[in-house]
């Protein structure tokens, strides 16, 4: 069978400021047969998205085709006329973009955007388009398609937007789908549902898929063949099983080892260093600088992509050694909490975003809607790490903001050490401000782009310790050293740092204050897995040396597992379960915890997620009863809607809030 997509010897590059041509893709061959599903993996900057877009004959502004061809149905996309391209794109060859929220035109209704796709690419008569749109939306399992048609993109949730994008791609009945990180940024449950949907659709229509992702768990679920890219070239290619179970390239091994796993209590192993910038790969192997097996030969000669005796096609001189060495290194054990006094105490905390209306204010009434976060009582020990998990909208970040004093609570108190904290930062004294530090998800937004690393670090040092002159300089350098960045980083601006380095600077800034409590809000979510492992390792190290208390918020359960002593599970701003990490992650659990755990995608071709509950987005918590009542797969009946569930404790330190008896919870 001839290939549907046949990319041959393609090189893509841009002209740098120095006038040199820098290659983003280097001599890549990739063939995809009809109905086949191929995964493209690699760190950011590896060229995987560029390759997928090149398959459509499209290059981002500034990029140029240097060599090669990208054939679709035997004709090079780069040689086709504009009319032909317009016919094929979105027709036989469709794209599902990374961020559907930004890829849907904000001023056009969903229905109009889907009808446009039909008008361009379907043979249906125009009077049947409206019905077809409804059918497509139903097909991607969007509830109430008739209402969705009339909405604008911003009125949908992330998962719904992604489904609309899938429906739009299906409108042209494509032979091949290109998926550019289609589930990145979505909740675990939504992601699992979308992937199942894609699998079903691909199987049902015999579509080929090229799935670009840095998420090996997603790749494992959808693809039969995986291509690993590094610095613009393919370093390993093989069946999903081969690449994920017994990779023969040191980079692929490193990538796998850096992924935290649900059933693994050790920290993931960081892949040190960073990939070369485009055009800087040198004459030898691009991975040489980061490779444990590197020899002199690797630095002078570029290895060729060749079939390996133990399976797959690999670009490495030492593939066999790499294969043998597989799985020998074990990650560091995380520092565990050994007990100690209470550091932070949340007592009956409730937080509301709803502002009471003027009339209610005058009459002294509170807001009519239930508060966003309610009834949170958690006590955290000194040096303990508490993981907060839940889907987006569960109130994780809201709680952190309130502890940090950025959002006043509607009720309840926050006590740090032995002193209750004033409600907002304006009323806290410098000592209390220093005590609690917050690290944000995205360092691009939390670091001032016009401040050098030195400026960023010196601020807390001046503010809290009154340092100046040489002392200030020396202390900044020391702190930078502690996050494993050299003093030569002091003069740099955030734009001159990689994503991982920026997040380290953000961590350094938090630790410069000498805090007792550090609040981590999705600190690794914007980072590559290899970098994520390094950041987790760093946080663990700081915990060891500083005895810091952490609250670690993440939607990634495996990341939470790696670092936390205790875990609290939140749904709609209410606690469902809290306990030691091993208690929450194993044994009897709240039905919601089970839903979350079931949706986790492991980088293992044999693991399948269990999808217990629909990925519905709830706008507000129910007024009475259990917060999870509308989605619970194990709903008992009316009691769940009317009565607040009781706390039940299967073991010391473990509490589950559910009407179902402990034996029944366990029986599942």
């Amino acid at each position, binding site marked *: 069978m001839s290939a549907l997509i046949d990319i041959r010897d393609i090189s893509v590059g841009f002209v740098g400021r120095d006038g040199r041509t820098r290659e983003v893709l280097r001599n890549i061959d990739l063939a995809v047969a009809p109905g086949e599903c191929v995964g493209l993996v690699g760190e950011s900057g590896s060229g995987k998205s560029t390759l997928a877009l090149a398959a459509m004959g499209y290059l981002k502004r500034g990029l140029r085709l240097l060599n090669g061809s990208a054939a679709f149905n035997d004709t090079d996309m780069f040689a086709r006329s504009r009319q032909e391209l*317009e016919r094929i794109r*979105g027709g036989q060859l469709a794209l599902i973009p990374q961020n559907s929220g930004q890829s849907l035109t*904000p*001023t056009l209704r969903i229905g109009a955007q889907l009808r446009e796709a039909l008008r361009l690419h379907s043979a249906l008569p125009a009077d049947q388009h409206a019905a077809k749109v409804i059918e497509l939306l139903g097909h991607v399992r969007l509830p109430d398609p008739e209402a969705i048609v009339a909405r604008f993109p*911003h009125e949908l949730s992330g998962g719904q937007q992604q489904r609309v994008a899938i429906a739009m791609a299906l409108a042209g009945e494509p032979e091949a789908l290109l998926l550019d990180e289609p589930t990145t940024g979505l909740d675990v449950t939504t992601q699992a549902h979308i992937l199942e949907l894609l699998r079903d659709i691909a199987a049902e229509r015999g579509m080929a898929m090229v799935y670009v992702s840095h998420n090996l768990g997603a790749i494992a679920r959808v693809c039969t063949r995986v291509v690993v890219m590094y610095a613009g070239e393919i370093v390993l290619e093989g069946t999903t099983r081969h690449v994920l179970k017994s990779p023969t390239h040191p980079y692929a091994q490193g990538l796998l080892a850096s992924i935290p796993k649900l059933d693994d209590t050790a920290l993931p192993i960081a892949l040190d260093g960073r990939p070369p910038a485009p055009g800087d790969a040198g004459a030898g192997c691009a991975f040489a600088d980061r490779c444990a097996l590197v020899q002199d030969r690797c630095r002078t000669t570029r290895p060729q992509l060749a079939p390996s005796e133990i399976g797959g096609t690999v670009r490495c001189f030492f593939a066999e050694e790499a294969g043998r060495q597989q799985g020998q290194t074990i990650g560091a054990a995380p520092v565990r909490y050994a007990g100690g006094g209470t550091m932070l105490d949340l007592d009956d905390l409730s937080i509301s975003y709803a502002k009471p209306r003027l009339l209610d204010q005058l009459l002294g009434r509170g807001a009519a809607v239930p508060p966003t976060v309610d009834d949170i009582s958690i006590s955290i020990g000194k040096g303990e790490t508490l993981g907060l998990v839940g889907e987006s909208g569960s109130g994780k970040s809201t709680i952190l903001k309130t502890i940090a004093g950025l959002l006043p609570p509607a009720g309840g108190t926050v006590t740090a050490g032995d002193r209750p904290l004033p409600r907002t930062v304006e009323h806290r004294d410098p000592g209390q401000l220093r005590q609690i530090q917050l690290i944000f998800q995205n360092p691009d937004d939390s670091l001032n782009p016009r401040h050098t690393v030195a400026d960023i670090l010196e601020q807390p040092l001046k503010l809290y310790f009154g340092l100046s002159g040489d002392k200030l300089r020396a202390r900044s350098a020391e702190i930078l050293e502690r996050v494993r960045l050299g003093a030569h980083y002091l003069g740099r601006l955030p734009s001159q740092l990689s994503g991982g380095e920026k997040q380290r600077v953000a961590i350094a800034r938090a630790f410069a204050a000498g805090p007792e409590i550090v609040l981590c809000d999705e600190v690794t979510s914007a980072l590559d897995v290899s970098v994520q492992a390094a950041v987790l390792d760093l946080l663990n190290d700081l915990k060891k040396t500083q005895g810091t208390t952490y609250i670690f918020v993440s939607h990634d359960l495996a990341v939470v597992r790696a670092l936390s002593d205790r875990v609290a599970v939140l749904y709609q701003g209410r606690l469902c379960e809290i306990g030691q990490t091993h208690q929450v992650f194993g044994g009897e659990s709240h039905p919601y915890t089970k839903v979350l755990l079931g949706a986790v995608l492991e980088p293992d071709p044999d693991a399948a997620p269990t999808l217990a509950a629909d990925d519905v987005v709830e706008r507000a918590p129910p007024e009475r009863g259990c917060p999870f009542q509308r989605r619970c797969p194990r709903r008992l009946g009316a009691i769940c809607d009317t009565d607040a569930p009781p706390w039940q404790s299967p073991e010391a330190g473990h509490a589950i809030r559910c009407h179902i008896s402990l034996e029944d919870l366990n029986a599942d």
Partner: protein
Amino acid sequence: MLMRRLFLGAITVWIVSVIIFAGVEVLPGDACTAFLEREAQGKLLENCREAQGLNRSAAERYFDWASGALRGDLGVSANGQKSISELVGNRLRNSLLLAVCALAVGVPTAIFLGVVTGLRRDKPVDLVFSTTAVFAMTIPEFVSATVLILVFSVWLGWLPGIVLTSAGAPVSEFFPEIVLPVIVLGMVMTAHILRMVRSSVIEVMVGDYVQMAILKGVPYWHIVFRHALPNALLPAINVVALTIAWLLGGVVVIEVVFNYPGLGRMMIDAISDRDLPVVQAIALIVATVYVGVNLTADLMTMVLNPRLRTHALRGS
């Protein structure tokens, strides 16, 4: 939401009126001393103050003035003893005429050129118009006005160089005298709007949803008109609004250079005559126009931008 904006707009105008009144109040002298000049003493001054009602408390006078203004009665001028509303009426119409002509020429030109330069970014057509726009923005209006008068009026003799029509003349008599002032104003205005539209178009055209439209196989012009422009032109609304307010507020320099009988020149004349009631009235009108035009622009943006519309409806 709408009521709230209207309410805030009204508050703004009220605060401005207080500031204007207080500003005139703290000036040494009053309308009578200004009008009577050297004879401002003794019985004459007292009589004048009596007639103008100046011997009452400031609060009372403010109330009279403000409630009069609400009814459209802006008082009488100090020197001519004529109704200010009548005086200003003609001038406002003339300024409006100038503004409408300049807008009718400038806005379509600016949007067209802005879109063209934005789509043809860094191509010759973009370089030519973008550079011209920078020149048009930086050359002071009185310079370009003088040059245009010199070329078209003095050398070529195609158009009259100054306006001789009186303030109360019918609209038709302002042509062709109005052409040169319109060209000068249009140039400055076009330049501002053009640059705004251009950068907005560039931003939208490299955006994710335009890339998605390309990869969905949407034909180029379809992308431009359906996906890009409705989004790219939203920010232009506010720039256009600012320009309108600027034009209606009386473009003082242009009106003086061309001797155009608009609000701006009336303001200048009133200031030099120390006709304080007229100054007060014009300042209030200009402030109201600014608030009104900006309010309209915000409402238009809200109607045209689905994202803001939802927020407004949910009644944030």
